[in-house]
């Protein structure tokens, strides 16, 4: 969670546009990553990430910090945006392949990834494709984006107990897939 986050959100709700800047800079990589691993294609991920932030900005007045962090709210918007996108006919999720991973590596302009790093990323993403969507989301939120159990539960709309159980199954299933690949 960003320091002084609630204060920034309050300023944004009061019409102070500049308060959007630190919130955007902090959450953009996280939301983008979350969306990218879900959809697997760079252009789609960028479009959907943009849509998610746009929705958040347009509906910022509706956000009420009642035990619900701004980050959790933003992740929920991103998640719903991705679901809405795939509800449209003729669209399939998880079309991740090596070619796409090349594109992904280009996204990080300041860091040149070595081939073995690309291969490792490809292996993880490919394994994630083979587990359930809710398990994949749980692993991304918990171990990639470092969300707490409570925040993950808020994003997924589940209880903390349910998230613990999903996380346990997800780790077990992903490990099984990776071991099979080896």
């Amino acid at each position, binding site marked *: 969670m960003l320091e002084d986050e609630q204060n920034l959100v309050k300023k944004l709700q009061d019409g102070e546009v500049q308060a959007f800047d630190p919130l955007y800079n902090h959450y953009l990589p996280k939301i983008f990553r979350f969306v990218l691993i879900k959809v697997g294609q760079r252009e789609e991920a960028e479009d959907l990430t943009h849509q998610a*932030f746009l929705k958040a*900005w*347009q509906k910022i007045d509706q956000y009420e910090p009642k035990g619900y962090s701004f980050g959790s709210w933003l992740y929920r918007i991103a998640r719903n945006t991705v679901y809405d996108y795939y509800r449209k006919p003729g669209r399939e999720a998880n079309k991740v392949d090596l070619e796409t991973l090349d594109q992904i590596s280009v996204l990080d302009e300041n860091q040149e990834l070595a081939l073995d790093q690309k291969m490792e*990323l490809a292996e*993880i993403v490919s394994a994630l494709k083979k587990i359930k969507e809710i398990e994949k989301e749980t692993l991304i939120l918990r171990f990639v984006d470092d969300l707490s159990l409570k925040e993950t539960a808020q994003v997924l709309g589940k209880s903390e107990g349910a998230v613990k159980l999903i996380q346990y199954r997800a780790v077990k299933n992903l490990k099984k897939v990776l071991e099979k690949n080896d």
Partner: protein
Amino acid sequence: MTEEDLIAKLSKLRTLKPGEGFSRLSKNAIMGSSRRKATMANRWNFSRTLNYGASLLLASLIVILVFGRGNPDVLVKETKTPATGLNLAVVNEASAAIKDINVQLSQAQYFNSEVNNTNQALGVAASSSEETKPAAPKTPTAAPAPTIDQMLNQAAQ
């Protein structure tokens, strides 16, 4: 593979980052849309003010229409008898006219009684003059029989 190994593998996905170009463009687009939103909000506020003004005018008109005509009971009475099609002003005029007619009628009755009295008085006078009036000469149909005095006078002659 331990759970820690798996988590370490997953954490490598953090290297996936959006491009600088996309970040900048997306942010500018959102900020641009926020400015449009602000403009729209101002327009909405303006139209809301207009709406308030129109509402106030309408309310004032209603108040004037309801209370500006005087006693609201009159309006109730008026609305209670819409089928007659009578306007209050017409009713009032008719009422005033009836009052005038009543006054005129009573005056007429008074004059009538006066006339009657006069006529009555004149009628009495007429009958008395008729009594004093000389009788019309009667046409003799047959010679009246002489009286005893006349017969005595004739005998003396």
